């Protein structure tokens, strides 16, 4: 293993969940008790050999890990620069990286004796991944989803229902992911005794950003080993899309001490940053406090959260995980934005050239690779996190292109 050349190893957050000035624990008092209970359970079980063995077994045999690290040879040649490897999280059970985290949190819920699981979902991937493990463990499951998202992700809604989950439409606010999160928090504050809230991304109050990251770093740990098997060395760059940022932190985290590995997080520019219709808090937002943590937000001058826009429901969120805010400020990762059109083009390119239909979320990362790869030499290596498969998005894409399915 190539060890880091830096003297001070990256170690975040602090014991109260701070990544520099970001993160922390900003919730109503009623949630302080349950969040403490959760933090203690998480700290205990992440040291518990039985728990970790059970988690490993589930990841191998239920999720299907390790996911391959695939060399996209034709696509790399076409772009004419660096070699691009794809971390195939789309091949996981349920079709995205989300399940790495839901398996972990559901096992934790079981150990804590909780009998009811709730979740919020945007694109529906986290909802499906939660409903899936809830079915697997025989636990009651309620998923909150914005009414707008329910419309654009009908297939995932049906999937969740097939899996036995109750899907509750949220019509308040912008009726998207942030409002689903508000509603899930309200449910949790009302039912804290028996309910476990599985947050789907590396945002929210401590310990969620650290806990979800720890469950997702399997992506980066595998990729780090796999690229050394394939190429005998570490990559030159990592690229992942960032909504809340769980797939990105999962890939990035095991490489943070490897200073020669450049790290790029790709936000959704929507119609374009300059139009204001985007979901790019790191590129175009300001720090603030929302959903239990301090982080960059898309907000107005009065501190009201602004409705975001992205072609991809999974990136359509006004906040971002606090660790990304920190990595931006210290300059360890660079955050860029890709608009709807560029993402759509990458969606088509990968589908036609590699025979892989990527999720629209992941297509943002792929689109940035099409910009970065040609600027790099042919012996350079990029790993792109292909965080999910695009089957769920074919209706959205067809719609945009005026095709009725």
């Amino acid at each position, binding site marked *: 293993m190539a060890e880091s050349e830096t003297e001070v190893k990256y170690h975040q957050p602090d014991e109260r969940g701070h990544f520099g000035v970001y993160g*922390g624990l900003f919730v109503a*008092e009623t949630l302080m008790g349950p969040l403490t209970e959760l933090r203690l359970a998480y700290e205990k079980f992440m040291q518990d050999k039985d728990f970790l063995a059970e988690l490993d077994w589930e990841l191998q045999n239920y999720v299907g890990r390790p996911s391959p690290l695939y060399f996209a040879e034709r696509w790399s040649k076409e772009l004419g620069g660096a070699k691009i490897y794809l971390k195939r999280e789309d091949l996981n059970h349920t079709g995205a990286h989300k399940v790495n985290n839901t398996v972990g949190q559901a096992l934790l819920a079981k150990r804590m004796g909780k009998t009811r699981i709730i979740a919020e979902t945007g694109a529906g991937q986290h909802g499906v991944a939660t409903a899936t493990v809830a079915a697997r463990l025989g636990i009651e499951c309620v998923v909150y989803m914005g009414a707008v998202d329910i419309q654009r992700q009908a297939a995932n809604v049906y999937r969740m229902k097939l899996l036995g989950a109750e899907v509750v439409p949220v019509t308040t*606010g912008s009726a998207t992911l942030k409002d689903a999160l508000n509603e899930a928090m*309200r449910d949790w504050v*009302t039912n804290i005794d028996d309910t476990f809230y599985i947050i789907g991304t590396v945002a929210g109050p401590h310990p969620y950003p650290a806990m979800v990251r720890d469950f997702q770093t399997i992506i980066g740990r595998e990729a780090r080993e796999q690229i050394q098997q394939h190429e005998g060395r570490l990559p030159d760059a990592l690229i992942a899309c960032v909504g809340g940022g769980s797939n990105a932190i999962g890939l990035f985290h095991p490489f943070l001490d490897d200073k020669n590995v450049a790290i790029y997080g790709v936000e959704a520019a929507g119609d374009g940053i300059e139009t204001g219709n985007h979901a790019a808090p790191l590129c175009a937002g300001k720090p603030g*406090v929302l959903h239990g943590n301090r982080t960059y937000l898309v907000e107005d001058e009065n*501190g009201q959260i602004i409705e975001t826009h992205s072609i991809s429901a999974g990136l359509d969120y006004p906040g971002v995980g606090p660790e990304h805010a920190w990595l931006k400020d210290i300059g360890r990762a660079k955050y860029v934005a890709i608009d709807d059109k560029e993402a759509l083009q990458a969606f088509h390119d990968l589908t036609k050239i590699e025979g892989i239909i990527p999720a629209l979320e992941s297509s943002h990362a792929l689109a940035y690779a099409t910009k970065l790869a040609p600027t790099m030499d042919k012996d350079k290596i990029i790993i792109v996190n292909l965080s999910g498969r695009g089957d769920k998005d074919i209706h959205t894409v067809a719609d945009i292109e005026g095709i009725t399915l």
Partner: protein
Amino acid sequence: MIDHVSRIQARFELRAKEGRKLLIPYFTAGDPKPENAVPMMHAMVEAGADLIELGVPFSDPMAEGPVIQRAMERALEYNVSLRDVMAMVAKFRQKDSETPVILMGYLNPVEVMGYTEFAQAASKAGVDGLLTVDIPPEEATDYVAALKAEGIDRIFLIAPTTSEDRIKAINDASGGFLYYVSLKGVTGAGHLDVKAVQDRVSTIRTLTELPVGVGFGIKDAESAASIASAADAVIVGSVIVKRIEENLDSADNAIKAVSELLSDMRQALDA
């Protein structure tokens, strides 16, 4: 020394001397229209309110039930901002220099303005206290210092799930009074267990010198009176906002409906 520093304390002391309980109504500033706020505040005082809790609209009110969520959405149709709410208080102060006013809302608008800038503006407007639902004392060091410097009282919530250690920490950061949330859940939810509230409040009293107000779930004069047996103040929110919602087309009718409700509660508290 700023002259309104002790408005909250003065009111609690006065009522304690009289053997009466404080009645604290809440409504969302700007619901349904910005110009209704100041007349509503005066009417509330007229109907027996001791202290007014003025809600600051926020786009993502995570601790609110549907009634107050809708009120905030109505106010946000007019883009009612934290600065606008302070301007309403300043206007209220032109005619009422005695009734304490606290702002209740979420941290982000205060955070974006800056704690010190907020505290100075609030003090100038005649605001007496601030309650932001989503800042626990552990995160509030700078916030408490900035508010203290301007004589703005810090009101924090205590929940049924709050440990005694945390009650002490909350007490240390607080000023004015402690706000006990009488049930788990969001504003406007569920049914009250009066005995459980009484038990909790007596525990809280062993850990603080500050007066204790109780809110969340008080629906009528009867529940106000039974909660008042355990507390120094009762805080009433959703049921008032509901009256406003039932009279969206007429500010006069909304004021009338809210005044009737508060008068009933006042009588029940004083009986």
